[in-house]
């Protein structure tokens, strides 16, 4: 990789340093090479860029506002905190930026059917939505446990016309949904496009999803310059697979004075059940890429845990693994309990009910804000709204609704 830039990855082999790659069954290789070729071609095409932008604006509702969370900033006695409000997007999270990009690609590749995996159901809903919009049949794979804890999203997907397949194999969560989606893909390789929901999977997915999500960071950069006349001191985002974080971070990677923090899910604690792949994982290969993975000493993938279904994944996007090694981004983690407190705090003080995923990023800010310089500017990615989580939270708080 070129020196003095953090933005040149991946290389031609789909690697970010030693991470990434194309670790998939032979049956799929011709197809992922085709996806790569098609993506390279369209990403520079004016007609594609314009169509993508048009839908982001008129259908998703972009640009999402950059909101100065004044009450929160005052209360925490710390820096000026801005929320990048991707929770206001159509379907309630950042996921739709990516599904929109991928469905346009699937369309140009003349694919006939869409599949996707989902954990929290947000990516499933975002996929089902664009499939309804562009008239594609679609099948969404969802682990049985997630299916039960995110029932409203299951119903949403069905309303949108998707088939939702309950996955009962393995640990019955996101990783198993992804296994099942890959099994579908090798079986229906000729006509099916797989819309992966995060910066994970084989090359070119980590790059492609990052590029589609980068609209978040590009907008934020423009907006903060307008509001503050300068770049922020810190960006902060939660990390499941890492797509909302990559989307915010990427356009700032070469702005060396902008610090960045990714927040993983520490679940019940880093020495108990958690989903902190960067903090506690080992180098390995899962779902097509080499990265940090939660696994036992035999190389079996271990079951992650987080209160937030969207962070409940045993791996992390390869670009994050590389950004960790290069120390460009700092990775930390917060527990279920801390995230839950942040969820309540934001609701009360800003009138914004955040999803449990960005509540992790907020929880870290709440812990550290008072130690940060008051004249600093922070942008936090409010990448999803909490409607989908009210049942989980109510249960946790032992409240009947």
């Amino acid at each position, binding site marked *: 990789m070129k020196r003095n830039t953090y933005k040149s990855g991946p290389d031609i082999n789909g690697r970010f340093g030693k991470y990434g790659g*194309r*670790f998939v*069954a032979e049956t799929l*290789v011709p197809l992922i090479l085709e996806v790569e070729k098609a993506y390279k071609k369209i990403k520079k095409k004016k007609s594609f860029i314009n169509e993508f932008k048009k839908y982001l604006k008129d259908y998703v509702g972009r640009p999402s506002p950059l909101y100065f969370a004044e009450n929160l900033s005052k209360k925490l006695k710390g820096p000026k905190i801005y929320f990048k409000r991707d929770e206001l997007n159509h379907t309630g999270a950042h996921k739709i930026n990516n599904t929109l990009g991928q469905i346009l690609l699937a369309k140009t590749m003349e694919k006939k059917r869409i599949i996707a995996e989902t954990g929290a159901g947000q990516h499933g809903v975002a996929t089902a939505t664009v499939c309804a919009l562009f008239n594609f049949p679609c099948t969404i794979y969802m682990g049985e446990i997630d299916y039960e804890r995110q029932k409203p999203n299951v119903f949403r997907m069905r309303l949108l016309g998707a088939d939702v397949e309950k996955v009962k194999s393995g640990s019955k969560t996101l990783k198993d949904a992804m*296994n099942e989606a890959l099994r579908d893909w090798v*079986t229906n390789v000729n006509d099916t496009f797989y819309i992966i929901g995060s910066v994970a999977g084989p090359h070119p997915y980590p790059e492609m999803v990052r590029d589609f999500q980068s609209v978040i960071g590009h907008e934020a950069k423009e907006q903060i310059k307008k509001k503050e006349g300068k770049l922020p001191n810190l960006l902060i985002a939660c990390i499941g697979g890492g797509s909302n974080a990559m989307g915010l971070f990427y356009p700032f990677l070469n702005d060396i004075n902008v610090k960045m923090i990714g927040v993983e899910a520490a679940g019940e604690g880093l020495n108990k059940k958690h989903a902190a792949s960067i903090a506690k994982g080992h180098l*390995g*290969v899962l779902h097509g890429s080499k990265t940090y993975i939660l696994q036992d000493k035999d*190389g079996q*993938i271990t079951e992650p845990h987080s209160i937030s279904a969207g962070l409940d994944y045993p791996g992390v996007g390869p670009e994050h693994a590389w950004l960790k090694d290069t120390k460009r981004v700092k990775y930390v983690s917060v527990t279920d309990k801390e995230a839950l407190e942040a969820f309540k705090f934001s609701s009360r003080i800003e009138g914004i009910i955040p999803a449990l995923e960005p509540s992790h990023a907020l929880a870290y800010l709440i812990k550290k804000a008072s130690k940060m310089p008051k004249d600093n500017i922070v942008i936090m990615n409010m990448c999803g709204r909490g409607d989908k989580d009210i049942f989980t939270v109510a249960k946790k708080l032992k409240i009947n609704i």
Partner: protein
Amino acid sequence: MPYKDILKNKFNELKTKKKCGLISFITAGDPDFNTSFQILEKLPECGVDIIELGMPFSDPMADGPIIQRANGRAIKNKMNLKKTFELVKRFRKKNYNTPLILMGYYNPVHRFGINNFINNVKKNNINGVIIVDLPPEEDNELCLPMIKNKVHFIKLATPTTNNIRFKKIIKHASGFIYYISITGITGANYKSNQKLGNQIKNLKKMTKLPIAVGFGIKNKNDVKELSKRADAVVVGSSIIKKVEEAEKKKYNKKKLVDNVLNYVKQLSSVL
């Protein structure tokens, strides 16, 4: 013991006899270490020419429900790569002439350590390795180190493989080519078709390596039919189904082993 290419010898022998070879796939440690050893030990006398032994993995992405469950049983009974090597070591004490190949996914191998893995493969006279999620694009990971150590790294070809792709695949292929008969996962339905025959003929024009065909081959008829086209056939899920059947019927271990081996005998009887 000096390294002998018994895999190559086996295919030569099959060729002289004008016989199609039978490759059986079982998961190491399914349903437990001892029972799977008893199956393994008797496979050659039931007519198996080459043994494929699955290395258990928690997330077998290319496998259907039957092999997924076999992996699950093995892992539940604490099977791992170290014990898989012990299993082979025991097998090799009495059998030195049946080629044995390990098949699995990359993560457990990577975690075990590449050098450690290769040393154990050589030490236990394992003749080749198939890793489902290591396509030619990732040859640097394990394929090239294996070849350097003179262990066969067996490559897969599929119905999605065109000629240009196949040339890339055979560049570092050795041992034999494993042709996957269908686009799909293990345990799906194999359907006899002309296209498959043509594809095999086409591959044969491009490589001298023997071609084994697998995935979805379910019974004597499939085996018989394919034997006219391929140098060897691979049967996996339908053998493992016999383990599952025996478990369901609560057979004792001896009866379970017999249930599996009798089925293997049936398969080999048509070759």
